[in-house]
């Protein structure tokens, strides 16, 4: 709605910033119209940086501090319906408090972009990272991605707007950032210039779905059983189309900005000849990569597959990537009490995805790093050793192992 000429972002710069700051800068680069905020750690760092950027004149937006997370997400939902580009976010139980608004945002096909600063759910009160907060929307029509670095946070936020606002998709997008490790750690980040961003990201145009006096429509009706299934089917199709739009947008991203992985959905690390593959999401990547490099030095054929997009889940690509290994260790920074094998959420998704394979690799679940507990290189070694034992003996002694938990 508002476009301001600013002196900032005229040229590409390199900045030392945290993941939260990177997301805030992405908001400025995307010239977001309406931003709502309500403080909760670790997400609140984003609102601090956004308000500073606005105060510095980096961009203009309506910055609304709501009286609760529920209102925060309601406001962006409505703003998005009238055609505003929006941003908000939360963490832990704050995200849960907004859940009603979060649910209807997807139901109404509104391309809100949110940052989830992953945080353990209360009780007990804890600031550290767990992925259960963001995972709560996995079935609701939200696209859901995890990033590993501040650079990726900035890039993913820009990609999020491009994909969410694509008329073939029109679904909300949550960018998940591990609390502390990403939200509060600064790294060198390439901040692109505004012109490039504008080339990559067209203005949000809701077209005939926009609430506007010149386009008299009503949205969000009450319906009966004779309508709902068709509506759910439409949302499902939108998510299916997102599977095509994401690679298309990512190819464009790489063309305009000159960086990016081969795949938008996953990152493959030393996977080519890997017999044992670890799988995980978010900042876990760092200790895992270090551990793998050391093991490779010892001749162990170990690789790492980082899932970037949890929704939509790149089933075929992941199946392809894992079809040749012998054993898989999924490291979940989440829990799912009472789930199949009492495994983590990612583990169970992955096990389901691999089921159709003719020769299935052994797959084991590891719960690690809950509540912000650091995942150490030695923990990764333990995971690999456990998977190796299963591969050597052909027997999975225990499908689920909690790593580095005091007995």
């Amino acid at each position, binding site marked *: 709605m508002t476009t301001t000429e600013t002196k900032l972002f005229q040229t590409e710069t390199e900045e030392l910033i945290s993941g939260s700051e990177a997301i805030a800068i992405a908001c400025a680069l995307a010239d977001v119209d309406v931003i709502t905020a309500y403080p909760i750690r670790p997400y609140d760092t984003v609102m601090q940086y956004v308000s500073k950027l606005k105060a510095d004149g980096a961009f203009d937006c309506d910055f609304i501090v709501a009286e609760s997370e529920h209102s925060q997400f309601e406001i962006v939902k409505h703003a998005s319906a009238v055609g505003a580009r929006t941003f908000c976010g939360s963490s832990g139980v704050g995200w849960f408090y907004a859940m009603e608004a979060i649910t209807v945002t997807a*139901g109404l096909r509104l391309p809100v972009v949110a940052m989830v600063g992953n945080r353990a759910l209360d009780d007990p009160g804890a600031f550290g990272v767990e992925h259960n907060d963001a995972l709560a929307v996995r079935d609701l029509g939200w696209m859901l991605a995890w990033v590993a670095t501040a650079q990726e946070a900035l890039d993913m936020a820009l990609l999020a707007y491009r994909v969410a606002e694509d008329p073939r998709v029109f679904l909300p997008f949550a960018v998940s950032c591990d609390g502390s490790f990403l939200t509060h750690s600064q790294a060198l980040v390439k901040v692109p210039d505004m012109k490039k961003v504008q080339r990559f990201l067209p203005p949000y145009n809701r077209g005939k*779905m926009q609430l506007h006096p010149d386009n008299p429509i009503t949205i969000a*009706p009450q319906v009966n059983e004779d309508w709902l299934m068709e*509506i759910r089917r439409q949302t499902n199709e939108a998510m299916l189309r997102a599977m095509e739009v994401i690679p298309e947008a990512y190819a464009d991203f790489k063309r305009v900005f000159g960086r990016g992985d081969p795949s938008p959905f996953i990152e493959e690390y030393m996977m080519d000849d890997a017999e044992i593959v670890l799988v995980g999401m978010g900042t876990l990547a760092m200790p895992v990569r270090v551990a793998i490099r050391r093991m490779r030095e010892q001749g162990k054929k170990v690789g790492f597959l980082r899932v970037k997009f949890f929704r939509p889940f790149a089933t075929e690509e992941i199946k392809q990537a894992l079809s040749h290994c012998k054993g898989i260790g999924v490291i979940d920074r989440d829990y799912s009490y009472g789930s199949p094998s009492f495994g983590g959420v990612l583990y169970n998704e992955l096990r389901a995805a691999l089921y159709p394979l003719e020769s299935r690799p052994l797959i084991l679940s590891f719960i690690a790093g809950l509540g912000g507990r650091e995942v150490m290189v030695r923990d990764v070694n333990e995971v690999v050793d456990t998977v190796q034992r299963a591969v050597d003996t052909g027997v999975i002694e225990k499908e689920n192992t909690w790593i580095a938990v005091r007995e």
Partner: protein
Amino acid sequence: MATVAVEVVYRGIYQKTLARNIVRSIVFAARKEGKIGTAFGRYGDSPERNGIPAKQFAIVADSPEELEENLAVYQAQEVDVTINVDDTMCKGIESWAWYGLEPINKLTKSGGTIIVTSRQQADALVEDIHQRSEPYNLAIVPATVSFSGLWVYKDDHTDARLLGALCKVCPQLVSLESMVAALREQGMNELKVVSAQKSYDRITQRPVEPGEGSTEIPFSFELPGWKKMEEGLVIRGIAQGGGFRGGELGYEPVRNETFKKWSTRSMRPVVNFETCIKCTLCWLQCPDTCFDVTPDGLYDANMESCCGCGVCDAVCPVPNCITMVNEAEFNDNNSQWEAWQKDPASYKQWMTTLTEKQNAGEERSHGFHHVGGYAEQIAKMGDS
């Protein structure tokens, strides 16, 4: 006997408790004979909305397996008996889900029976009911239609009388003895038991032959598939209206073609165009925008969209200019203003006859709107 199904078609709020009492008593009575049954309301209905046609069902079977067989189809496809507790619904019903207009005999089996509470004669009701190719029977329990509120129940024996009649028209369901035992067991007093027995003795059935009845084609529409529906839960607004019935003057709003509410109506406004002072209040206050503004600045209620709420009557400042009249008196949804234009004298006569009958007749309550309303009505009813 396999399975016997009964539906009770009732109006939301006003008759919710009545319908529930009937279906529950059926199951209790069947239990007396060692049968098994279930009673439930159609979930897609919205019985907590004034006057909306809704349904309750009672299904009775000899064995749990037979019952399950029947319940595998949640929405009954056919019933042995249809009980209609408001005769105005003989014109057809549209539930809150707005599936289009359903004839009252839609689910009644070939050779089955419709029991209606009514002051009308059978022939007059047959005129209202949509014709069909299978025969059925019509039985009338002569009664003023029983309306009450959501939290109060008018114990005027309508339930007992209908249940007595039901035992007669559908002997394979339960015997009168079992029904009486069930009524007593539920704590109904002996006067109600007598009402049930009398109704059993007196009820008669009038066979309705194929092709008899209203020739109106019930309003219907096609539900679109997901590929055709607009995305994002968008519903297009309706265009602005124009001149009265295609003319230059006056005003007529455009109305939603798939959203007609008239079967919710149990009374309709009758307008005296000669005393109307054109104050606009009825037009302004109607919650359903059902008044069309005529070229001469009068207000003609469109009977496809009027749900009979009576707000127009309540806000009209001229005494007797708008009178709410029992819907049972009407056989069409035609324009009153056009009839008046054509022949003011006959219109006046028609209107006067209707309104006088209405004012002199038994009260047709829209529920109880103030504390003590129930007591007032009971006092008026006298001993019966």
